[in-house]
């Protein structure tokens, strides 16, 4: 134990400001894909990351398919197939028996189909690996699509649909996508009660048969196993899988051109309004993505340090949640979206502040301090992208699936460090176009448009012609004529 004098001496050594602290440099190199990459005999790629700290194994599979492959008259088919692969038992086992076996083994098995990929995963104690893996592949290869489970799934989906207009979060996300990418792009397709009811068991069987072929799988395996033994298990599991490698069409890009303006959805029950302001963004093969990411971090992506949060939230107390996002798209361009939620009366004021900040970052160079904070953060936080073996395997598998350039992670930090204040100004001017902004507000329309009587200088109507978007019928998704 130390005595009081020694403590006082220690305390006296504390520097007066944290910027005077000195840190050892942190040496970190990202995992190299080739160290973990294996190609199975049928051409499927597997990333295997061994780690023996916990007696657990995680197997994740990405399947080349997606909701974009839904037939136009059967929207919801892909999502339902992904869900029923897990829920509907197997050809050999009733759903109940299949579930009992998995639960007794204390394994977790999941399956789903999202917008642009199918996923399936297994997490199990390594002592139960063989039994769990056998069940997992039995499910992937020969799902049962039990009829009772299908009818239950239809009831649940219909119930979910009936709540489509209950929450402003859901309304905002749906209408934002439609404004940005139009109603023809798959990312805005909506299943309806009729489209779900029209889906038959045979449709599910056929969708699965068409896309679930191991030549189209990418595996991400991590945890407590021996790599060679695991490779042998994966090989054995895919042996004799019938059919041929499916040809999967590419993910379509949106053709819609967004119409600038102010759009209001009335939800009279709420006292807080959700607002999004934005426009189409960039794809991730765009070399400007590093400058764009730094620009967005300074504008509204960098938590409290960013301009939008600082002004809307901490200066004015107008919102709890505010900021901006500009994630580059993988298959088609992403979007730029600034957002906040504020009480109805102060919506217009907060929107004016956001617009001011968008204009400012296009007009003036960002400060050296803002630039270095944004770049330092992105560089220093980099090892978190590979925080656990499961994340390493998952990231490498996702890169494989989306065909990310091989040097991406190796070059990532130097490309970020190279971004200058001039770059930030240039990309702000190139990609943020205030005159082309789509502005969406969801909340009590009368109160939002009335604004704050003590601050008449702020009004949504001053930002453009206000167009009302009605709420659609939640089961048919037909929008009433206005």
């Amino acid at each position, binding site marked *: 134990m*130390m005595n009081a004098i020694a*403590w006082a001496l*220690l*305390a006296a050594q*504390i520097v007066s400001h*944290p910027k005077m602290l000195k*840190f*050892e440099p*942190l040496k970190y190199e990202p995992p190299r894909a080739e160290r973990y990459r294996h190609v199975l005999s049928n051409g499927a790629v597997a990333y295997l990351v061994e780690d023996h700290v*916990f*007696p*657990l194994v995680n197997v994740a599979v990405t399947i080349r398919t997606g909701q974009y492959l839904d037939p136009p008259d059967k929207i919801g088919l892909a999502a339902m197939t992904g869900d029923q692969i897990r829920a509907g038992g197997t050809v050999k086992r009733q759903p*109940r028996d299949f*579930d009992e076996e998995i*639960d*007794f*083994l*204390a394994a977790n098995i999941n399956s789903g189909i999202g917008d642009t990929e199918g996923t399936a995963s297994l997490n199990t*104690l*390594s002592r139960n690996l063989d039994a769990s893996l056998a069940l997992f592949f039995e499910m992937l290869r020969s799902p049962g699509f039990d009829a009772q489970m299908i009818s*239950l799934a239809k*009831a649940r989906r219909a*119930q979910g649909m*009936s*709540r489509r*207009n*209950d929450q*402003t979060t859901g309304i905002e996300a749906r209408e934002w996508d439609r404004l940005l990418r139009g109603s023809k792009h798959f990312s805005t397709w909506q299943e309806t009660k009729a489209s779900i009811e029209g889906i038959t068991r045979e449709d599910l069987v056929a969708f699965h048969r068409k896309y679930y072929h191991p030549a189209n799988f990418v595996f991400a395996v991590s945890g*407590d196993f021996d790599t060679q033994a695991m490779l042998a298990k994966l090989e054995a599991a895919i042996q004799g899988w019938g059919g041929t490698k499916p040809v999967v069409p590419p993910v379509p890009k949106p053709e819609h051109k967004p119409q600038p303006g102010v759009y209001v959805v009335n939800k009279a029950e*709420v*006292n*807080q309004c959700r607002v999004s302001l934005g426009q189409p963004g960039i794809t991730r093969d765009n070399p400007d993505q590093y400058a764009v990411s730094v620009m967005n971090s300074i504008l509204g992506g*960098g*938590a*409290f*340090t960013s301009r939008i*949060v*600082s002004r809307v*939230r*901490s*200066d*004015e*107390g107008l*919102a*709890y*949640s505010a900021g901006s996002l500009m994630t580059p798209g993988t298959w088609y361009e992403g979007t730029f979206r600034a957002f906040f*939620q504020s*009480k109805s009366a102060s919506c217009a004021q907060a929107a004016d502040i956001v617009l001011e900040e968008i204009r400012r970052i296009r007009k003036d160079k960002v400060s050296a301090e803002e630039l*270095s*904070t944004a770049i*330092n*953060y992105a*560089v*220093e*936080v980099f*090892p*978190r992208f590979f925080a*656990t073996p499961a994340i390493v395997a998952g990231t490498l598998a996702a890169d494989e699936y989306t065909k990310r350039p091989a040097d991406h992670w190796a070059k990532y930090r130097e490309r970020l460090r190279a971004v200058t204040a001039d770059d930030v100004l240039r990309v702000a001017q190139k990609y943020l176009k205030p005159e082309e902004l789509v502005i969406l507000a969801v909340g009590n329309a009368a109160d939002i448009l009335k604004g704050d009587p003590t601050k008449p200088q702020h009004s949504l109507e001053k930002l453009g012609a206000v167009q009302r978007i009605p709420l659609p*019928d939640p*089961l048919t998704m037909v929008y009433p004529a206005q």
Partner: protein
Amino acid sequence: MRLAACVLLLAVTAWGQKVPVEEFVLPNGMKFLLVPRRGDPNVAVGWVARVGSVNERPGITGISHLFEHMMFKGTRTIGTSNIDEEMKTLREMDAVRVEIRREEQALIEKQRRGQVADAKDPKSRTPRHRELVEKYDALVKKARGYLVKDELDRIYRSAGGSALNAGTDQDYTVYFINVPANKLELWFWIEADRLLNPVFREFYSERDVVHEERRMRTDSTPTGRFQEQYEAMFWEASPYSWPVVGWPSDLEGITREEAESYFSLYYAPNNLAACLVGDFDPARAKELAQQYFGRLQRGPRDPEPVRTQEVKQLAEQRMTAYAESNPEVHIRYHSVADNHADEPALLMMSNLLNGRTGRLYKSLVLEQQLATAVRAASSGLKYEGYFELVGTARPGKDPVEVEKAIYKEVEALAATPVGERELQKVKNQQQAMDFRRLQSNFGLMIQLLVSEAQGSWQTINQYSEKFQAVTADDIQRVAKKYFAPENRTVALYYRKEGAKP
């Protein structure tokens, strides 16, 4: 090969079931929990104050949470360009606020008497009131002149600190971040300074931010206000009855003075515990803890435990709500506080009821086709606890039918011993959970701090054994003890008319 793997596995098993925590307590009473682990070059760090909404009283409900926000506003060093002038201005602001408060109270009184329609309408303000607001606004501008905006956040951010945030619950308030392994000392510097020299700047505008948070989480969600009513009905005497975010009238009234006296009692080191999980040297961490947090003065007294205990419920309570929600039934029974001897059996009961092979899903969803979703949860808080069951009616079914079917399952637990395989299933699942919950450094840090705030971090190492020891008899006994009709509170939700379909 095979043998080596086996040996390794055993070592891991022994490790995994007990988290090897090194504990030490500074002379001022602040406790530290250290879990060094290899892995990515990062440390998950946090500290907890053993205070939450349960420690509040009417008039200052929501202060714990508002306080959490204030802790991000900086210190006498961080966030200011001239601390002395700034403090002077903040004091002037407080003085004006006291006068504004008096005016507001007069308006509230007038509203109560029906003399004004809306106390918050600026048109109802007296000339004096308006003058005070103008004076106050001018002081806000002046204070802003001394402000270095969100400097605390910026310092962490440029050092690669991620997930900087905090959370307030009924029993605790927890502050956390991930820092790169080489920046650990920065965490000690900033967190100790936050506790030694806090400045509650931007206090009144932050109250507005919290009010927006309340609108977002409660007022503008379909069932938020109904859930508040349900809580207030369920807890008769206990301070768990009010929402963590606080009642709106209290949020508008809390003063900086109240926040300061709250801080001096509940944020004294003898009421705090910190935890580090990840890539660090424990000897160095101990040194830094001593050097930085050793400067905090122990509080004049330890905060007293909450005095008010829940009283025994005598009759079933019910509410019927018409909301934009699914038709649902919520059933809640008073049970026991965290770490009560009956808790493992209650948790096991929830596991027997939950999941695809759980009793509720098999019976209500698959066999009787009454529900589309059902779940059960046992919640042990620091001072009280409850067991809750929730069912969503299948379209065309009434939540009351779901309610009755849930009672049948609960009665079956009391009437018939659970079979051996079923019991073994949930015990197997718990064994896997014992490992899964340890995988994330951040998750483990939070679990340790929360357990510590609710009693002792040691419980996370004792729980598994207790769970594995639960017998079929225990389940029956506990089901009989807590699932009595007069011990329950029920909420029925129906879809509001006009909400389609």
